[in-house]
């Protein structure tokens, strides 16, 4: 059902955990199936230097969380904001159609974390 890449990220997820003194945290719940994903980021000089996730969800949710953290790490805020659910799915060599909403979740959590960071900067 899942690609080898998905299974790899599912079995060996990158960047699992929480950053204690995170600059931004994004938590999203999946309206479709009810799963939850939390991403915390560390930003230095507009660059995401560290990123971690925690996910309560299916194989695709775990793999997309892992992938999105890998994709975002080292990127500027602007670049990271351009990461779409499609880009995440593509990097995983695709997802089954009924699982596309899981990659939505990952992209959303990342964007929310960035928003949270920006909000804290504005204050």
């Amino acid at each position, binding site marked *: 059902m899942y690609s080898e890449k998905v299974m790899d990220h599912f079995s060996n997820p990158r960047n*699992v955990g929480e950053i204690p003194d995170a600059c931004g945290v994004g*938590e999203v719940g999946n309206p479709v199936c009810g*799963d939850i994903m939390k991403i915390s980021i560390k930003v230095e000089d507009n660059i995401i230097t560290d990123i971690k996730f925690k*996910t*309560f969800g*299916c194989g695709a949710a775990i793999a997309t969380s892992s992938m999105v953290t890998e994709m975002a790490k080292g990127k500027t805020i602007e670049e990271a904001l351009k990461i779409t659910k499609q880009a995440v799915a593509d990097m995983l060599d695709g997802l089954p159609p009924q699982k596309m909403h899981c990659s939505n979740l990952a992209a959303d959590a990342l964007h929310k974390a960035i928003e949270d960071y920006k909000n804290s900067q504005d204050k």
Partner: protein
Amino acid sequence: MRRVYFDHSATTPVHPLVAEEVYRFMTEHNYGNPSSLHYFGQIARKALDESREKVAKAIGAKSEEIIFTSGGTESDNMAIHGAALTNIKRGNHVITSAVEHHAALNAVKALAKQGFSVTVLPVDQYGMVNVDDVEKAITDKTILISIMHANNEVGTIMPIAEIGKVVKDRGIIFHVDAVQSLGKIPVNVDDLGIDLLTVSGHKIYGPKGIGALYVRKGTRWRPTLFHGGAQERLRRAGTENVPGIVGLGKAAELAMENMEAENKRLLTLRDKLIGEVTKRFSHVRLTGHPTIRLPNHASFVFEYIEGESVLLSLDMKGIAASTGSACASGSLEPSHVLLSMGIPHEIAHGSIRLTLGAGNTEEDVDYFLEAMGPIVERFRSMSPLSEE
């Protein structure tokens, strides 16, 4: 890799003797059409009769009360629509339960769209239908009650004999889906007071794509699904699936022979599984009734973890299990059975079902318990919900 199949409620391996019979009826001189008058046809006809006898015997019925179908889904649909449409002049009320298999539940819901009035009975925390609820739901318009014998997702065994007594002599047709119970607990249509009974081959070590519907003699029931030839004494059109039917007969026969000993064996394994899982892990509970449940059925909800990902991890260890998690369902809805039992959406997420069968040993149980430890730990540590 070691392979442990713990998904016998989904489907079972075909018993080697059944597989041989099926093979035999595709080859040699045994491939005839039972409607044919010649030698080849008559071999097939005889095989049908013998098989019908065996299936009848397994449920305490008469051979002419058995109709062969393409499986449990067809039988449920045939039973429910046939009974409802045949009795539409006598009433329009149908009773079922919230935890039926979709084949029955959706067939009843389709009736609701056709103007029938439908009562879907709730269940208790164990997934059990209450006999008093059935009695209270009955009106003078009630024509059909459809309740499953044992639940596929949580293993709970329903009080069918008691419901049968309530229904008796009221002129109401009582349909029971015995897909999960047959071969695991005694199913006798007279003892249980059943008018229509659904059987599926592939849950009792028989072939897929074959099932049966028992119709008690004298029941006001007509077939409404298929139009066509005169097969099955005008009750189910279509060239009979002879190899499948022969396989179902053999499977039913073997199930009866093995039931007692096999279920004693599985009960021990099941109880070890339930005991150890609830002992070793925190935030886990058994779903379904603790004792009034199928002897091969262990089902749980693990808090803070999601079933599909557990399944994938178990699969990597060679263990085949199943889940009622929303993520694993085509519709992205959690199991209607778990929700009906009052289990919240997020906890239903962590459902894991382990259903044992013929090939399983105590080593399989131990292997599972060992594999499951790190998996639960890993997902809980990954979960934003877990306090651990």
